[in-house]
């Protein structure tokens, strides 16, 4: 199970059901999950709430990146300030101690935010496999007004007819079988 996450899945076929209504997509996603279909995904023009839960997608790990990188940035900033001001070339300024902690806090904070923020964006780009300019665009309206449920070929139990039967009553405006 754990190793599956690192194995590159290469489905050759997939079913894409298009809806014009996010609620219908949510119902269809729940139904597909109920029937035990695996590797489900959805393509939507905006983040539909509750969709990840309906598809069984794990929560994002990005907040941990932000936390760890934010703290590392702050630690690096403070260490650098202490090293330059107290060790590399200590200079007495304004009668303040070499390690003037209160005066070092603003830069410490800014370094934490800087590393935390930029690494959050980097993590997002990495997590989404971007830039991905060659990736196929399944339907041009998926970034406009269509909400697509994507059921890739997953394991030997994958059966196109069965999936189409499951999706029948869900109110899809279009169902396509895609060959990748």
């Amino acid at each position, binding site marked *: 199970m754990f190793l599956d996450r690192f194995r590159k899945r290469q489905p050759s076929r997939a079913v894409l059901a298009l809806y014009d209504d*996010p609620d219908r997509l949510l119902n269809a996603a729940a139904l597909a999950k109920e029937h035990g279909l695996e590797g489900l*995904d*959805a*393509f*939507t*023009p*905006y*983040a*539909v*709430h509750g969709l*990840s839960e309906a598809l069984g*997608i*794990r*929560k*994002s790990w*990005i*907040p941990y990146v*932000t936390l760890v990188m*934010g703290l590392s940035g702050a630690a690096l900033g403070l260490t*650098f300030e202490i090293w*330059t*001001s107290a060790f*590399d*070339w200590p*200079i007495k*300024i*304004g009668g*303040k101690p070499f390690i*003037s902690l209160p*005066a*070092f806090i*603003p*830069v410490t*904070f*800014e*370094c934490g*935010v*800087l590393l*935390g*923020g*930029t690494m*959050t*964006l980097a*993590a*997002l*780009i990495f*997590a*989404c496999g*971007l*830039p*991905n*300019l060659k*990736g196929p*665009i399944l339907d*041009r*309206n*998926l*970034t*406009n*007004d269509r909400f697509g449920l994507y059921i890739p070929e997953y394991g030997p139990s994958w059966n196109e007819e069965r999936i189409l039967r499951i999706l029948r009553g869900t109110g899809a405006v279009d169902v396509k079988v895609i060959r990748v």
Partner: protein
Amino acid sequence: MSDVIQAPGIPAEPLINPRKTFADVNEEVSAPLERKPGMLWKVFFGISLLLTIQFFMEIGYQMYKGIGIWGLNHPVGWAVDITSFVFWIGIGHAGTLISAILHLFRQRWRTAINRSAEAMTIFAVMTAGLFPLIHMGRTWFGYWLVPYPNWRFLWVNFRSPLVWDVFAVTTYLTISICFWYTGLIPDFASIRDRSAGWRRAIYGALSLGWRGSERHWQHYERAYMMLAGLSTPLVLSVHSIVSFDFATSLLPGWHTTIFPPYFVAGAIFSGFAMVVTLLVILRKVFHMEEYVTLQHLENMNKIILATGMMVGYAYATEFFVAMYSGNPYERFTFLNRAGGPFAWSYWIMVTCNVVVPQIFWFKRFRRSLPVMFVASILVNVGMWFERFTIIVTSLSRDFLPPNWSYYKPTIFDYSVIVGSFGFFFMWFLLFCRFFPAISMAEVKSVLWTAKKSEAAARERPRAKEPAHVS
């Protein structure tokens, strides 16, 4: 999740017309990018470009001649340059407030305005960033502000608020750009999917190949939330640190502990006024009246009223503390502000910042475009003079009367002021022309909520009827 807590029976004014379709949003927001700009845009852009050109010519001449070409003199070593720096940094704060703090508080009315407000932040911070550089006089040594290993074996002094400023402003600019770009990715993908040719290639590259997969949205939403969470303390820290430039000095009128909250409130105040100014123009020029509604503008006017009163309260507190402290220098400085040679600047500040926003107590004025347009401009005039009052009056009459001097701006000072506005507006106009000025993905989610609440409102009376049958 409901947008606002609403008393039952009172219909909430929808943030967007629920009859619109998702496709309408794409169509109408992308329209300005896909047609040739109108006459009005060209005129505005031409003027901003000319002002920007004269701005950089002035900077060039000033780097050649020295900062003496400004009206600076012996006690007044900081004037228009630092005033404009603080002013422009402050303008930026409203953008982050709208995009980050209102996001964390789930104020969904921000969706139609956050993109342009964030853009305003970035351009305002870019403009602000020029001022410390040109103020240095020897601009080509600007990199000395950054701690880097050098042959002098010297590091910067981390105990100095001016160094904190360097870190705060660069971090602020970087994080604002990250936040803005994250928001733009799905919208670039929307534009890519509706265009062809070179336009598709460019917007496709900008979207990084975003396809809207739920697996990606899951990460996206969390990352966006994290960036909002980081930006919130950041925005408060930036103007606090800017205020430390003054507060940690010993000059009467600067050396006060009230400065950080006072500066932050003033920054939000002036920033919101700038957002109102820009949006009144933007919705008119690009026909976005249905997205940036009067309700959005009214909400912002309420924030202007609230923060304006905070600023007014801070003015009163400063005066009271100066009186109560028993410190003769402090007392003199404040009497000098209100009645000395710079009294004109002080009273412009009080009129524009304390008196003018009071008209927003009236709903009719909060929703009147001409009134809010004029008021928002006056607020920014007032806020510029607030920084001028703080900086110049305090410097011009410090402890010793032999040091005193009046400050008189030269033509180059005026050139820098108007030039910075030209520079800022030039970027903003380019943004409106080439980038989606309204966040399509976020507006669509609000639109869906509006559609559902309208559908629910249509069904409610029918469901209630049987209850009355006894």
